[in-house]
């Protein structure tokens, strides 16, 4: 499935990046609504290498969270998933639950937007962290607790020994996110998926949490898939970014390239809608209209109704994603022919 026109070898970028850790190919997620199948995400392909930080960017309804849950194999049973998700070359799609349980937490971990809600309110944070250590590593209670305190120390929770015995409600949002991170790192995973980890936090706390994630990445050599709607976060911490719109990848590129030479009008529009004191002191570019809901997704370009560069061909058939520069893929038939530097400053 899918219309991928990049080189057929799955590890096409081996010469420039470390070995591929996560390889997602032709991912498609469908749900049934009113007796018809609605696809939430389709033709999503990307890779994450060890030690690499990849941003998955999009607005609500773009499918970024569905994609991340699909990678974790955490979608509800009602969702139909097809395509391939490989970790270290091993297929995750269709694996029995028991095996997935072993992988989740030990090889791939995830942290979520609202850390406090992801923690169990009736157990101390320390016991929740040591639970996963004992489960995956089979060590003694005492050893697991010692490791727990060590981890809380690692994520810079002051007075870790005491904090470990506290409940989630006794900790601030930033602290809870650190606890989540400690838990995610407990069994030294290879891949960490962070779904909007700092969205609910103040800027100063956001910065600290992002720093910690990046430090942990260095320490453990983690591949990091960072899901965010905030291009500022992408600009600060990502090596590459994948831009999703209405359930599809519309552009993916190394961040410098993506910010300097966006090739999809949507990417350019998003970048121009960010306040940027350097380039445009007081005006924000705006993309007219809104993201279509999933039942209205079409086969042709889904951004066309909002796009100032729309041609009749844009809505006539499927638009393949094509490689226009090294590591730079775009799903737009006009890619490379447009000057997007002033896009959306109507």
């Amino acid at each position, binding site marked *: 499935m899918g219309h991928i026109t990049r080189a057929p070898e799955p590890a096409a970028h081996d010469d420039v990046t470390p070995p591929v850790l996560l390889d997602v190919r032709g991912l498609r997620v469908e749900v049934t609504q009113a007796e018809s199948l609605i696809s939430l995400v389709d033709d999503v392909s990307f890779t994450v290498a060890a030690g690499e930080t990849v941003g998955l960017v999009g*607005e*609500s309804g773009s499918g970024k969270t569905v994609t991340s849950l699909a990678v974790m194999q955490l979608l509800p049973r009602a969702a139909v998933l097809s395509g391939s998700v490989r970790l270290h070359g091993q297929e995750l799609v269709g694996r029995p639950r028991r095996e997935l349980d072993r992988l989740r937490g030990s090889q791939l971990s995830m942290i979520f937007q609202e850390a406090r809600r992801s923690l169990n309110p009736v157990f101390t944070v320390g016991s929740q962290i040591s639970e996963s250590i004992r489960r995956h590593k089979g060590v003694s209670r005492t050893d697991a607790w010692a490791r727990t305190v060590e981890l809380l120390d690692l994520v*810079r929770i*002051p007075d870790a020994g005491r904090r470990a015995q506290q409940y989630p409600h006794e900790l*601030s949002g*930033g602290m809870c996110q650190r606890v989540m991170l400690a838990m995610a790192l407990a069994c030294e995973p290879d891949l960490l998926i962070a779904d909007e980890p700092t969205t609910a936090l*103040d*800027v*100063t*706390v*956001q*910065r*600290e949490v*992002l*720093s*910690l994630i*990046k*430090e942990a990445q*260095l320490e453990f050599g983690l591949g990091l898939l960072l899901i965010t*709607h*905030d*291009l*500022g*976060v992408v*600009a*600060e*911490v*990502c090596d590459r970014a994948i831009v999703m719109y209405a359930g599809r990848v519309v552009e993916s590129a190394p*961040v*410098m390239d993506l*910010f*300097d030479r966006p090739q999809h009008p949507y990417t350019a*529009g*998003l970048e*121009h*809608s*960010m*306040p*940027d*004191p*350097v*380039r445009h*002191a*007081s*005006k*924000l*570019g*705006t*993309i*007219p209209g*809104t*993201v279509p809901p999933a039942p209205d997704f079409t086969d042709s370009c889904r951004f066309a109704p909002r796009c100032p560069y729309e041609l009749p061909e844009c809505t006539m058939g499927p638009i393949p994603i094509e490689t226009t520069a090294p590591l730079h893929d775009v799903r737009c038939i006009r890619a490379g022919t447009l000057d997007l530097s002033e896009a959306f400053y109507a």
Partner: protein
Amino acid sequence: MPDVLAPPPTLQITGLKKSYVVRRDLLGRVTQRFEAVKGVDLSVDAGQTLAVVGESGAGKSTVGRLALRLIDPDEGDIRVLGEDITGLGRPALKRIRARATMIFQDPYKSLDPKCTIRYSLNEPMIAQNIGERDERDAKVDALIERVGLSAGHLDRYPYEMSGGQLQRVAIARALTTDPELVVCDEPVAALDMSIRAQVINLLREIQAERGLAYLFVTHDLSLVRVIADRVAVMRSGLIVENRPTGELFDQPTQDYTRTLLSAIPAAHPRDRTFTRRSAPSDSS
């Protein structure tokens, strides 16, 4: 002393204090208070935007609510268009609330789910006894177009609209009584990126047309530079710095302001400021 001929500021707040009861003893006597606002002075002139920024818990939303007396202050003066509203009773306050309105963060919660958009837009005028039915209708029609929606949206209910569309409705509603002051409490925080810019641009255009004063409460410092003439930085119930936006961003005088500003993510990877050394401070 200000020139007697100069018009008074649209909003002027002096010595404002507000505390909340945290704990009472067995007999109901207050044993612990939290001082949300500990003595705030600020003013906003016609056509100007004052952004009140700070981290969660700094007291910025409390200041926004106090400004319209949605909650009552413990101490201090609030003047709207020169009139002291601190001690006004309900009928007089109602009159003021036609001239000073508010836009909230979450439009799904600030618009009545049982009412059509048309009714929600009419309601403030009905409450204020403004205009005859056809005048109100004409105004609603004009406003809905002005905020970028169409007359077709008027007969919808909130659940039938997106967050961005509803925030446009909330803006239109805030304008129905032709106010001079609008308090905007995180008006775009709940919106998607591409929608956020639309709404910000709309607020700016409307301000330019009507000479509105905005008190703009936000935690998003990157936005402030685009919208605000002045910025008041709040921390723990106090304003630590209140200066013209350009000055504040270029030469912050307070360490706290510097910390806040340096935490704003860059708009481009080339301006990356991220270092892997995070501040070791225990951030609440």
